[in-house]
């Protein structure tokens, strides 16, 4: 039995009537003790008996690949195999691909492509042998410069933006650039594969197991029923573990060939190359405004890149379609086919870089019109989606702007740049709006209810996103159980298929599937009490209907009950436009001597429907805001101009924000329930915090010292050049 729901319209808020008082509280993570004691086991851990160790080998150039000394390497101490298999993959699969990515190792399409896996008795032997394998490439390399090729695609044109620009009182035509970015989660990509006859079990570090299972099966040429993937703990993903990855495929191939378990862990430098990066972008932004700052038209055109054969194009302008009013519009991406490492989803694909550049342009318009940046945005909030004419499910931008501005003390800000100086430091503040589309996918979950409590099972993952916590709270709230009576089991394809973690859709999609499973159980409990489910109150293990209260264990009467829920998105995601909204505010100091930028404080006000757990939600926003600091100031993957390879592919040279880069961060949530988003009335939050955060920092840099940086990140050399 299963309770299925397709979301075709508004949903009733059932959680407002529940009695346990668990959902929405800042509960600690239930897996917290495992994580602080080192007992949580990640993909490379739990080594099976007789496990062999594999190491990937990269291509040093593009073209036809030859392993020159494979026989010599096979003879090295401990070496078991040098494998170059046509089923190995070129790069990680794109998110939700559900099939194998491009396969083959005879030809390298980018520098750094995996072309072999060397397996040995020990990790040290495998590493030495892999480093000893000499790979050559020959043939003419494909293009690596975005400006050297004719891109694919055309933007969508509405009205006549060119005329609107000519007629505008204030017109801006600006170009911003962002470099490639890397997710680079703390846990490198890792897998241990073990075969039992025709069946392969893989402990992996992946975000979306139901898709990953099909992808791996397709890579190996076997049926998905013969693939089991387990990822109970994932050491961060941020998009880089959405699709099946090279180490998982090569571990499975090697384990099949050797007839024993094989572990393959990507070295940090390998993971930079073989896992999808965020594409570099060149963004032309046009704004046409009247004397009052009201937009008559806007243009947002982006040039992005990817390898031939990849379907993904960084959706830079995704939010620009609905963010601001303006009848005349040119919006869309062009895709350059380049032989740089593959591009794909990195936290908030599209909005992370698109909203950031657009919000910098809005700041420039505010300066040009003489309007306060908050007021300029308020004036351009559309009453319906300007691209499709559809209504919004809810629109919280004005509320977020007001809330954030008030809390930050925005009204104390002198409008002129270079208004405040402390010693060598220019002090300034900036703001930006935040937008991120709200997406729902499909998910299933089941709950087993026994006298001991409830056990929730789904193949959903927890990347640190708080899944264990919120699914515990949802099930506990709906079934009237305290958190300690609920066990959540995740990350195993033997469980019902969840949504996977990505696109901020995990909590709302899989969470609603857990709610439906709980509702299924509530109906069974109500039937046993001979009452209507809506009249049933469950709290602290007691079931109350009318004036009758009985212990849940007594209601079960020795039976174990199972509830199953299944949710799919329907017209509720077609008839209205769903988005989350927010406002970022930042204060920075810029050194007049060195051009160094220090962020002094940062504040975000966010609206994402019902907040399921304020503690884990806040941490997600901290993460996004911090990535915004990195995007604005330090994060930049550099591609070699000659062959496109990633020059700075490690954590010493690719500068993510560290503790000393991050000031105290303030996060506030606006009260909101969005009935269009499902029964929980909750929307995705994991990516909203990064969208526009970097723009608040860069706009603050301008306000502090008068230097406008349009080529991100704002490293000291660029700021200093502007100061001089």
């Amino acid at each position, binding site marked *: 039995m299963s309770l299925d729901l397709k979301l075709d319209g508004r949903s009733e808020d059932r959680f407002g009537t529940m009695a346990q008082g668990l959902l929405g509280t800042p509960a600690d993570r239930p897996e917290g003790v495992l994580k602080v004691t080192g007992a949580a086991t*990640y993909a490379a851990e739990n080594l099976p008996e007789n496990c062999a160790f594999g190491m990937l080998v990269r291509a040093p150039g593009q073209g036809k690949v030859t392993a020159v000394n494979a026989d010599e390497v096979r003879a090295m101490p401990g070496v078991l195999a040098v494998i170059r298999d046509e089923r190995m993959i070129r790069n990680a699969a794109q998110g939700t691909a559900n099939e194998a990515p491009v396969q083959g190792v005879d030809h390298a399409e980018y520098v750094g492509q995996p072309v072999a896996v060397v397996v040995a008795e020990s990790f040290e032997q495998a590493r030495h042998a892999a480093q000893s394998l000499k790979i050559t490439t020959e043939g003419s390399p494909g293009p690596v410069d975005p400006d050297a090729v004719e891109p694919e695609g055309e933007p969508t044109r509405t009205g006549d933006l060119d005329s609107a620009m000519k007629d505008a009182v204030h017109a801006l035509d600006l170009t911003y650039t962002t470099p490639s970015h890397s997710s680079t989660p703390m846990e490198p990509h890792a897998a241990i594969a073990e075969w039992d006859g025709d069946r392969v079990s893989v402990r992996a570090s992946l975000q979306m197991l139901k898709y990953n299972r099909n992808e791996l099966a397709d890579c190996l040429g076997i049926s998905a029923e013969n693939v089991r993937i387990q990822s109970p703990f994932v050491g*961060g993903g941020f998009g880089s573990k959405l699709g099946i990855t090279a180490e998982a495929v090569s571990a499975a191939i090697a384990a099949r060939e050797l007839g024993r378990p094989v572990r393959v862990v990507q070295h940090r430098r390998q993971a930079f190359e073989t896992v999808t990066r965020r594409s570099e972008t060149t963004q032309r932004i046009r704004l046409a405004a009247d004397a009052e700052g009201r937009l008559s038209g806007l243009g947002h055109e982006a040039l992005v890149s990817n390898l031939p054969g990849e379907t993904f194009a960084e959706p830079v302008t995704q939010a620009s379609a609905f963010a601001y009013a303006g009848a005349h519009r040119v919006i869309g991406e062009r895709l350059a086919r380049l032989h740089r490492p593959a591009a794909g989803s990195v936290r908030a694909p599209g909005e992370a870089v698109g909203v950031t550049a657009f919000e910098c342009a809005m700041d420039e318009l505010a300066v040009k019109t003489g309007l306060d940046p908050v007021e300029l945005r308020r004036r351009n909030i559309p009453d319906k989606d300007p691209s499709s004419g559809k209504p919004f499910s809810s629109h919280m931008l004005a509320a977020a702007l007001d809330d954030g501005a008030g809390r930050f003390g925005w009204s104390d800000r002198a409008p002129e740049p270079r208004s405040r100086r402390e010693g060598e430091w220019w002090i300034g503040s900036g703001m930006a709006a935040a937008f991120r589309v709200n997406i729902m996918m499909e998910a299933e979950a089941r709950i087993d209810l026994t006298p001991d409590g409830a056990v929730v099972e789904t193949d959903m993952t927890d990347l640190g996103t708080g899944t264990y916590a919120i699914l515990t709270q949802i099930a506990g709230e709906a079934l009237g159980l305290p958190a300690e009576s609920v066990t959540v089991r995740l990350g195993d394809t033997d469980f019902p298929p969840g949504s996977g973690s990505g696109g901020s859709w995990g909590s709302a999609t899989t969470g609603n599937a857990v709610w439906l499973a709980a509702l299924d159980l509530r109906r069974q409990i109500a039937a046993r009490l001979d009452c209507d489910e809506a009249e049933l109150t469950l709290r602290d293990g007691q079931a109350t209907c009318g004036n009758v209260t009985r212990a849940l264990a007594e209601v079960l009467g020795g039976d174990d009950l199972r509830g199953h829920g299944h949710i799919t998105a329907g017209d509720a995601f077609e008839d209205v436009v769903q988005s989350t909204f927010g406002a970022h505010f930042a204060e920075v100091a810029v050194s007049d001597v060195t051009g160094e930028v220090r962020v002094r404080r940062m504040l975000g006000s966010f609206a994402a429907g019902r907040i399921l757990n304020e503690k884990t939600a806040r941490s997600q926003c901290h993460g996004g805001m911090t990535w915004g600091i990195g995007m604005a100031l330090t994060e930049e993957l550099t591609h070699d101009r000659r062959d496109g390879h990633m020059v700075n592919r*490690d954590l010493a040279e690719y500068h993510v924000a560290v503790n000393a880069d991050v000031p105290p961060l303030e996060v506030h949530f606006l009260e909101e329930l969005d009935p269009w988003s499902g029964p929980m009335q909750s929307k995705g939050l994991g990516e909203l915090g990064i969208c526009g955060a970097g723009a608040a920092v860069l706009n603050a840099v301008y306000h502090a010292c008068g230097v406008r940086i349009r080529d991100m990140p704002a490293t000291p050399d660029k700021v200093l050049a502007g100061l001089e």
Partner: protein
Amino acid sequence: MQTTLSINGTEHRLDLDTRVTLLDALRDHLGLCGSKKGCDHGQCGACTVLVGGRRINACLTLAVMHDGDEITTVEGLAEGADGGLSPLQRAFITHDGFQCGYCTPGQLCSATGMLGELAEGWPSHASADLDGNYELSQEELSERMSGNICRCSCYPGINAAIRDAAGAEGRK
């Protein structure tokens, strides 16, 4: 090569390839997987352990160099015979000082070592002078913990947890 490591108070005799790092000895040879490998290059801090009470990157040192050394890993931080959590471990949970949890063992070992360094009067880049009397200010704490990257970016929670566990808004 024969090596004896004293880990969390227990002696382990190992016969290791001289190329095995202390980190891989812990993880792959002793099954103590709490210490994490994030970069294997001393760039991220996930592998931080305490050797003789001093924090080091276990990926940047070979196991055979530590014959006879006293090593503390995250598995050894819990206090008391019942294995109860240390105040720092409890504070990390309360303040949500982690999300994915992968850098957490390194953060915990690093913070434990850092508080010791502060108490002993070691200066940092953020210290105004060298008189050895330092408070656990935001600047000192952030500077001293910047060798441990958290890509989930839980720095606000990490810092709140450390200050809470250190027992003061300003430990002298």
